């Protein structure tokens, strides 16, 4: 497997979607290629970072404000025959 191919398969490798043969070829490539190992490691870190940073609940104040706004819009809608 070449570096270009490895990068092409990188997400499928991370998501464990490759068939056994391709997965084995990817592992062999990664064992001997520093650049692709770094690409793999930093891509995994990118995913973790995104998930940890973004999968947070809305802050209380914002949540309340949004619900207030929504409730108002909802009441206006139902009044006008929704």
């Amino acid at each position: 497997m070449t570096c270009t191919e490895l990068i092409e398969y990188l997400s499928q490798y991370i998501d464990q979607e490759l068939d056994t043969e391709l997965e084995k070829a990817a592992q062999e490539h990664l064992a001997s290629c520093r650049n692709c190992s770094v690409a793999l490691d930093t891509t995994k870190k990118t995913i973790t970072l995104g998930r940890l940073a973004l999968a947070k609940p809305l802050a209380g104040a914002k949540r309340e404000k949004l619900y207030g706004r929504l409730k108002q819009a909802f009441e206006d809608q139902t009044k006008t025959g929704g």
Partner: protein
Amino acid sequence: MTEEDTLIERLRKKDETAFKDLFELHIDHVYRLAYGILQNEDDAEETAQQTFIAAYRAIDRFEPKAKLSTWLYRITYNNALNILHQRKQNDPLPDDESERFIPSSLIDWRFEPEQLLLEEETHLQLEKAISTLPPAMRAAFILRDVEQIPIHECADIQNISETLCKTRTHRARLLLRERLSEYFSERK
């Protein structure tokens, strides 16, 4: 009857407290996807509002076999794209099937994500990196990697093939990795 079935029943009967329950259960997800696509708080709020009202009004047409969350994500996704369209911003759905992306910044990061997140600057850099992606790629990344939705549901929400959904997620990951590496690499 599952809790979701009960909620849907209550929504159909126009039970007033059901609307609040729908909001509490799903607002985080709806808002995250909307904000992810639009990158603007006012537009994300507008999208969330449109989504809950549309869902409430269309609840009788909701397929009992489907998942409420998938349905809400789909309405959110479409509403957000409509707003983008109104804003006439850059094409939300670029032809992203061609052209390979080759990583160029290949130095390992100095810290683990958990450590990086302790710094305010990390959050800013991440926001900045995400904002440089095309909206469709942002949507794929949010759905797959932040919300961790299975690929078939992801494709369904965006009304695209699983292959295209995978391609967009892959491109998004590589581009984000590249931008973040420029900042987080072990350099002097």
